[in-house]
């Protein structure tokens, strides 16, 4: 980054200050050494580390069969809990693209999850069946069963989520960022209200039941997903999580990722340099939306039953808290955030009532004391702490006087 002389001085000063603040203690020195070693062995260590990590993740639900685990670890590695972790990891990865990469606050993320889930509920015929069952015109023989074409519902849900994202995003992304936040906040509730009121399509407040579990019958492969706690849902979701992590890391390092950085740092300057600002923001918004759409389909097939109250605003905020706690703009942060936010209440069930209060306080505290989150993206940390290269010399002085 080449700027004017004063910019570069400010930059160097900021870095020096960060060094002083973080100290050069043994932990930090070890972290630096580890990073250097990691970078030096890029060629064979990294693929190996990936392989080992994915293998461990895939084997987690089987631990319980091989070893006697303490009760909290049993709770944490049950199929139901792990698939919740994987589902929310997928959502957090998607929302991280919107909030972390592009810097857009989407408070209605649950809407796209709902769109995905309802797409599955309606296209599999479960909605019609539920309606018929309640009206007395259908009986158990009509219960929808899984057909191979139903895998395409994933694509359909992705498409619907993209369309909804474009419809919602294109008028609002042109405006000031804070308007997007409140419009999406409203949109999340609107989708829920619509699902509640439009009972000819969505069966209304009582929800859609009997959504079929997926199956694969192809040659030697013979898989049928079972009930809620089936480990296979975790594996299915894990496949998507790995795919998404790879795709998102590639996006982040691509031209699009650099455009997002530019927009986040200075929208006007980015626009002046020829970055198509609105289109890039829309891309981030839609990528986030489509992730939630895909997750929504698997969710609906797993839990078998969906109804409007599931998709409350609280879920959006929960996913946001995962992104914030893990570290905005950090892919591994999103994974860690989702894992913590899902697992901690599961492990400490005694404190369940305090859960949302604690999350709320945590969000405020993270913003105040560690805005870069637990596993910060290095570039984002600099921006969020307020030590960007734009800082002029006097500002740096003031910041020091107050923090010191």
């Amino acid at each position, binding site marked *: 980054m080449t700027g004017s002389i004063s910019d570069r001085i400010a930059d160097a000063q900021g870095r020096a200050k960060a060094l002083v603040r973080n100290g050069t203690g043994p932990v930090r020195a070890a972290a630096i050494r580890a990073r250097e070693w990691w970078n030096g062995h890029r060629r064979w260590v990294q693929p190996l580390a990936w392989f080992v990590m994915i293998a461990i993740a895939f084997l987690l639900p089987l631990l319980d069969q091989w070893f006697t685990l303490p009760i909290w670890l049993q709770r944490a590695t049950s199929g139901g809990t792990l698939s919740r972790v994987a589902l929310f990891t997928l959502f957090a990865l998607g929302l991280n693209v919107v909030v972390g990469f592009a810097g857009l606050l989407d408070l209605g993320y649950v809407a796209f999850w709902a769109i995905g889930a309802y797409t599955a509920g309606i296209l599999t015929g479960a909605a019609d069946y539920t309606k018929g069952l309640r009206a007395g015109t259908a009986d158990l023989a009509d219960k929808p069963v899984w057909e191979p074409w139903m895998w395409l519902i994933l694509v359909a849900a992705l498409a619907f989520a993209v369309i909804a994202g474009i419809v919602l995003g294109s008028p609002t992304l042109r405006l000031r*960022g804070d*308007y997007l936040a409140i419009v999406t*906040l409203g949109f999340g509730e609107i989708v829920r*209200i619509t699902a509640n009121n439009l009972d000819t399509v969505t069966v209304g407040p009582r929800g859609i039941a009997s959504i079929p579990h997926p199956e694969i019958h192809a040659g030697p492969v013979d898989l049928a997903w079972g009930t809620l706690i089936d480990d296979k849902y975790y594996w299915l979701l894990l496949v998507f999580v790995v795919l998404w992590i790879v795709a998102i890391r590639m996006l982040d390092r691509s031209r699009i990722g650099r455009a997002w950085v530019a927009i986040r740092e200075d929208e006007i300057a980015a626009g002046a340099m020829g970055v198509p600002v609105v289109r890039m923001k829309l891309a981030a918004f839609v990528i986030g939306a489509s992730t939630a759409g895909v997750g929504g389909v698997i969710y609906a097939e797993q839990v078998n039953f969906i109804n409007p109250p599931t998709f409350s605003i609280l879920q959006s905020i929960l996913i946001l808290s995962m992104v914030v706690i893990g570290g905005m703009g950090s892919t591994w942060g999103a994974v860690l955030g989702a894992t913590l936010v899902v697992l901690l209440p599961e492990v400490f069930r005694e404190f369940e009532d*305090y859960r949302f*209060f604690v999350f709320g*306080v945590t969000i405020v505290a993270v*913003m105040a004391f560690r805005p870069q989150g637990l596993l910060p993206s290095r570039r984002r940390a600099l921006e969020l*702490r307020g030590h960007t290269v734009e800082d002029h010399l006097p500002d740096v002085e003031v910041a020091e006087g107050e923090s010191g």
Partner: protein
Amino acid sequence: MGECVTNIVDQFWAQTRNGVTLGAIYAMIALGYTMVYGVLQLINFAHSEVFMVSTVVTLFAVRNWMGVTEPVTGVLLVIVLIGALIPAMLAGGGMAVAIERLAYRPLRRRGAPRLSFLIAAIGASLAIQYLFVLMDGQHYLLWFKLPNILGPNPQSLPEVMQTQTLFTWFGTEISNRRVVVVVVAVAMMVVLDLIVRRTRVGRGIRAVAQDQETAAIMGVDIERIIVLTFLIGGIMAGAAGMLFVTIAPGAPAFWFIGFFPGIKAFTAAVLGGIGNIRGAMLGGLLLGLVEAYGTACTGAQWVNVIAFVVLVLVLMVRPTGILGEQVGA
């Protein structure tokens, strides 16, 4: 469609009456959004919780402190209304100042990006909502036992006033409740307008809104003005909470009660022109009317969607609002 038009024509004056009452409450809340926006260029998302808290405090004051279980009349009614209004305003103002102090000030000191403020606001909102869910007399916050104020279950708002028809206007009966709401709201908004336009504090608010640095150079204490802005906005939302209790006896008071009034009041602020104080008043009134006519048209189950559609339309067609965006009105 035809049904929609006939409904509106049939119920025109009744819905106008409903819209004006509702609009007065929206306007009161919208003032908090717009004033904070004017001074800090920040949407205070947690403002809806100020409304929630003051509604709950009103409920508590009427039911537990004053022991009102059935409607009162005469001098006693005036005392009860004032006795409810004052704690509601104090709670509203206190809540707003607390939000500023705990959620926003640390970020402001650091010069954090805009996104951080919005996220902190959402976190504060969640924390306040669930703090009140925990207040059922059985939970602890660290070592303090939380009082029994609200809890997880909705509680029915008390009936303070006996409904009486004061006069008839175009064949529509206007009840004493609605008169109280509109009179209190208009009186408070006139006072606010005078404070902002005529007093020293008001001049300070306008100066900070126009140009913070210059105002500071001219000797305005920025921190004090910011706190005062939050305080005034909170007091208005606090009064709105008390008026809501007056107008809607039997409605459920619960932790989520602030959400829709909050989002609608924000819509009202954008409709009038964000940052513009008179715009917020006008926007509130208009939104109340649109919502009332819209309800006649679509039926009550879509009532919460109408304001949202208005918001998106305003943002698409005229994002600066009717009276124009303005800081330092």
